[in-house]
């Protein structure tokens, strides 16, 4: 029965294409695109092709492609082959919004996935207006409750709520100094940090922010920290600032007695910081390359098989979009379509594949996850503690 239906479908497709092909020879390219679009399931992934996060572009692209290849190898989504469209999420929010409009209207994308900063996320959410489902994947400050928007990203409750109590207990920490880049994510993280530090019996002895986009040097800040002599520094600077801050911190000898937790400490950043400057430095996220589990080994094997010797360094920024695309596939399969109400219903308690194991989307459109405590002192992020099924702490209805 199925075989007959399948061959019927094929021959009808062939007929349509044959007659359409003749007409298409004379028609505009858009006409051909519409024909193919009828069969493909289009997922558009916004990743960092340009801009300050562009060093993650190669691994994000590889992870997105790997997810799509695996989905297609397992039969696609509801019989449709998945086509991946890569868009640049590293541009200004206005530019990303324009690209989103084009993808929605001209390319008729079925599902959006994004691994980029919050400013771009807000622009995209305002563009989609809930019409097309969108999954946001990297680490962020929480609070995204827009309709038809799903979040796979690590939240402050998951990072701070696990790491601070553990570090305070393990190292007997007391006072805390906060250093971050001046934008929403570090500021929200620091609010969570203040609560967690107070709960652990500590106090805040300093709070500083450095501008994003400015050529920042950290000698003066590090000297101030040295004078205050805290036992713990919460580091929420990102990218190259994270590298330079930690280098300067260690060169002034502060790494001897002060523990550091960096909010976005992934493998690339640690490579820049270097083993010499990483004593007492920790990171807490939902993915590290060193996580050892059957699922993470299988993922790594598939990734290396696809990318070969020159495989881009694996990192949370990259594996996040793998999980996001898998979510998109699973929820569409279960819902039977990308209708917003059907997807919303299907998404509740929906399991899907991530690079470290199975994650489950909850009714608050966020994921409760296993978090990993990474110790960077060996020059590689080694998992020293695992926190299972940490609630996202988000209250979306």
């Amino acid at each position, binding site marked *: 029965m199925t075989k007959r239906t399948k061959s019927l479908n094929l021959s009808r497709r062939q007929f349509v294409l044959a007659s359409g092909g003749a007409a298409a020879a004379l028609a505009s390219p858009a006409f051909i695109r519409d024909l193919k679009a009828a069969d493909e399931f289009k997922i558009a992934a916004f990743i960092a092709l340009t801009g300050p996060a562009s060093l993650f*572009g190669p691994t994000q692209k590889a992870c997105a492609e790997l997810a799509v290849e695996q989905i297609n190898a397992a039969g696609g989504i509801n019989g449709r082959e998945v086509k991946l469209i890569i868009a640049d999420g590293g541009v200004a929010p206005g530019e990303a919004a324009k690209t989103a409009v084009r993808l929605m209207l001209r390319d008729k994308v079925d599902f959006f996935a994004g691994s980029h900063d919050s400013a771009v996320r807000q622009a995209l959410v305002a563009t989609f207006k809930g019409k097309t489902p969108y999954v946001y994947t990297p680490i962020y400050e929480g609070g995204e409750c827009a309709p038809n928007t799903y979040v796979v990203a690590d939240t402050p409750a998951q990072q701070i709520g696990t790491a601070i109590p553990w570090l305070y207990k393990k190292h007997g920490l007391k006072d805390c100094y906060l250093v971050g880049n001046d934008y929403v994510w570090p500021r929200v993280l620091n609010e969570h940090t203040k609560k967690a530090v107070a709960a652990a019996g500590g106090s805040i002895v300093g709070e500083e*922010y450095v501008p994003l986009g400015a050529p920042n040097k950290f000698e003066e800040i590090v000297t101030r920290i040295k004078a205050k002599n805290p036992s713990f520094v919460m580091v929420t600077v990102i990218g190259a600032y994270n*590298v330079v801050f930690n280098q300067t911190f260690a060169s002034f000898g502060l790494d001897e007695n002060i523990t550091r937790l960096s909010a976005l400490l992934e493998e690339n950043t640690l*490579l820049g*910081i270097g083993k010499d400057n990483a004593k007492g430095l920790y990171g807490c996220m939902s993915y590290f390359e060193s996580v050892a589990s059957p699922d993470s080994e299988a993922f790594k094997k598939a990734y290396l098989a696809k990318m070969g010797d020159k495989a881009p360094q694996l990192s949370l920024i990259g594996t996040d979009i793998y999980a996001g695309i898998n979510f998109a596939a699973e929820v569409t399969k279960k819902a039977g379509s990308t209708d917003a109400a059907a997807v919303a219903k299907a998404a509740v308690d929906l399991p899907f594949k991530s690079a470290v194991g199975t994650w489950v989307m909850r009714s608050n459109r966020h994921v409760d996850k296993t978090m990993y405590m990474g110790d960077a002192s060996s020059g590689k992020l080694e998992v020293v503690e695992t926190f299972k099924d940490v609630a996202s702490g988000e209250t979306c209805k």
Partner: protein
Amino acid sequence: MDPLIVAQTLNFAYAVISLLLVVLGLAVTLGWLGVMNLAHGEFVMLGAYVAVVTERMGWPFWAAIPLTILFCIVLGIVVERLLIRPLYSRPFDLLLATWGLSILIRKIVEAAFGGGYISLTVPVKGSLDILGASYPTYRILIMAFTVALLAMLLAWYFRSSAAARVKAMVGNPMLAQAVGIDTNALARNTFVVGTCLAGLAGVIIAPVTSVNPFLGLDYVINAFFVIIVGGLGSVLGLFAGSGIIGGLDSFVSAILDRTSAFFLVLLIAIFFLWLRPRGLFARN
């Protein structure tokens, strides 16, 4: 003396001197020769990557210095002949051309080394005790090196006949040629000295910064402010600019915070562009 004040004073000196080191090459190419080389930051970045290659080959850090000078001489000669010389009389086109060069260099480095951050081992670890404050030894070395380099260059500038010839050429190219000075060769050599100084700066600061293809862009921002404040076309202007920008940045960072410091630097730049666009010591 309060170790905090000693340390912040040393930070002040380090901020001014390290900025000077990076714009030294620009003092030569722009201040002296009048060539707006927007790829200056990329030559600094290339120097940093020479240090990376040196470490990867297992050679001592100091070997990177002669290697960078060699590399920058070759690259400088090629760039001067192909890009700079045809456009000496067309400054705006030269600006665009060197910006294009900077993009090209960034992309080549990214293709060769990847876009990620590379860490270098600091060649001299540990701290020195200065008036009760403990300060990283390598940063002291950077300051000492730069001051020594500066002294050498100034001595050469005021004493040597080659410097006199360059001054002649820059002051009145026609007359210089008439007197028998090979202006083409002199311009080329001066440009190459500028790129070598940039590469040298890159090597020296590489261990204390994050080495990545976008390293140069940070320095172009600062260099731009230094030129606005110090003045276009003069060596003294570049020194004054470094002192004001680097010093203000460090002083306000120490007293208040980095956001205020950057804000003030921008404010000063806007003020100068508005009221005194030629800067403090512009060439007349």
